[in-house]
């Protein structure tokens, strides 16, 4: 189980690993599917578009973050909470009092420092205390202290399928996760997320895994420093494939999806790894990893295949 939890955590950090090792070669992208309000990419906005596309991918997948000096609030806290609840599900089922087969039981847990609570409705279909297909957890956070912030709202997780042994190195597990108005509140600011996603992990051996996050639709709205902002993500897919490399592993990441946000004037762009990273209409932006720390942003404003404008940014400025 420890290895499973480690993989669960790693599934969210691998994009950062890509930047660290340049794994997967250049990340570039191409035109996404059509959209009713497609944002033209120009020399005035291609850096912003690239930042939004990358940072959105990262807030879904990254567990790196910043040290706490000043307190910083962004969408990552939402996903950090979802991650923590996902990691706890096997142990919660295992530790729950044994009841009759198929029974649903409701438990209440205190949050960090005894501040606030989480109400859990656990369903263990066969009552064996292990994670099985159909088992589920409904989680309601009530002013729940988490990492210095306050969480309120609900999410549900259910096991869509599971085979193998999570304590070993050969297994496959798929979760369905629904987030319903889950809010992180801190310093007078508030960010609320809602949407559905699927998390899949396939392990076929030591350091040989494929992790997939598929998001049908996910909306984030918030007030940050008194300013309202929102992001919408749809048809998002994040795939991280680990293969053995020496005593560790190498990682190849691919990302695709459609993003709209207040930063993009509520218009949409689609992005996909491998070949132009971002494209809208005829215009396209390409993002290429230069090294472990630098990323080249290029703009082809008229779609003629020639990238006429470029700039190099540190990776950390983009995510």
């Amino acid at each position: 189980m420890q290895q499973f939890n480690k993989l669960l955590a790693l599934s969210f950090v691998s994009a950062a690993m890509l930047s660290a090792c340049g794994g997967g070669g250049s990340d570039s992208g191409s035109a996404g599917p059509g959209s009713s309000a497609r944002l033209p990419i120009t020399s005035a906005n291609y850096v912003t578009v690239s930042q939004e596309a990358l940072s959105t991918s990262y807030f879904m997948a990254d567990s790196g973050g910043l040290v706490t000096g000043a307190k910083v609030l962004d969408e990552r806290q939402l996903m950090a909470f979802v991650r923590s609840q996902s990691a706890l599900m096997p142990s919660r089922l295992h530790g729950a009092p044994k009841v009759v087969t198929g029974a649903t039981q409701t438990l209440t847990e205190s949050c960090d420092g005894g501040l606030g609570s989480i109400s859990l409705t656990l369903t263990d279909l066969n009552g064996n205390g292990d994670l099985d297909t159909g088992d589920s957890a409904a989680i309601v956070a009530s002013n729940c202290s988490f990492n210095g912030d306050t969480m309120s709202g609900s999410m549900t997780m259910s096991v869509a399928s599971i085979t193998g042994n999570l304590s070993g190195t050969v297994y496959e597990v798929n979760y369905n996760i629904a987030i319903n108005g889950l809010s992180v509140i801190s310093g007078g600011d508030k960010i609320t997320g809602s949407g559905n996603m699927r998390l899949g992990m396939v392990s076929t051996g030591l350091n040989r895994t494929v992790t997939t996050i598929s998001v049908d639709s996910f909306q984030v709205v918030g007030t940050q420093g008194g300013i309202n902002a929102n992001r919408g993500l749809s048809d998002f897919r994040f795939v991280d494939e680990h293969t053995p490399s020496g005593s560790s592993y190498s990682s190849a990441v691919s990302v695709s999806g459609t993003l709209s946000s207040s930063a993009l004037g509520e218009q949409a762009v689609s992005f996909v790894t491998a070949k132009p990273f971002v494209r809208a209409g005829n215009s396209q932006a390409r993002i290429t990893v230069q090294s472990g720390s630098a990323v080249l942003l290029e703009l082809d404003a008229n779609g003629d295949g020639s990238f006429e404008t470029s700039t190099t940014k540190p990776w950390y400025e983009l995510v």
Partner: protein
Amino acid sequence: MLWALLAVGSAHGCQGLTAGAALGSADSTWQEQGEQGQRLVREQGRLARAQLSAEAHCLGWAWRASATQARGSRAYDGVSTTGTSIRTGSRIVQSVLALDAMRPFWPQTELGLQAELHLTRRDIASAGLVLGYPEKFQHLQMAVGARQRWATEGGGEFQIEGWWGASPWGRLKLDLPNADASTLPLGRGRHWRALAAWQAPLADGWSWRLQAQADSISWQRGSSRALRRGEVVSGSAWQPATRQSGWDVSLGWTKAF
């Protein structure tokens, strides 16, 4: 600046002009708390401290100006923005410009006012994938205080001081790796300082001075500000409720002119 003050004081008929220098070691603790009182960060470490000072009696008041710098590092025990426990370190450079004025109200007892400008650079180191960043704090402290003196054998003196006050202004310049630089206001601050010193004469106007002091300042949570990358709001930040405390011991020499 101190030498300029001495020159100005001398030109305006001030008496009892002295200049001093001191070296010391300070134990520094920094703690940040979340809104529900939970601990977010605790840092502790030792800073090397150097101080230059000048004193004079002018217009019926005893004036003292000082410039202090402390440097060192603190061990950081906190959490990342995504909830991971982090142990790393921070490098600290603190500079303080202080001016206080005291006048006697009872034999051996003086009351006075103090103003201090504090500049602190705190550079938190990265820890693996969790990125660190530099912070620059600036704040003013205003205080009222009292000093009691006792003469000791051989022409020396033992004194204690106590100061209580507030921080009417403070700000934090924040340079996060994934956002443009921003400035955050600090919340209201309160502070106190207690000091004991023993001073004894040497020859030719020289004296030595052994001093120990403890102090603490607490800020309430500051209001939040939007973080931006270019024109894009990428998050928000604020300074949590923070308490900085410490004690230090220093040894110095003064010269009377």
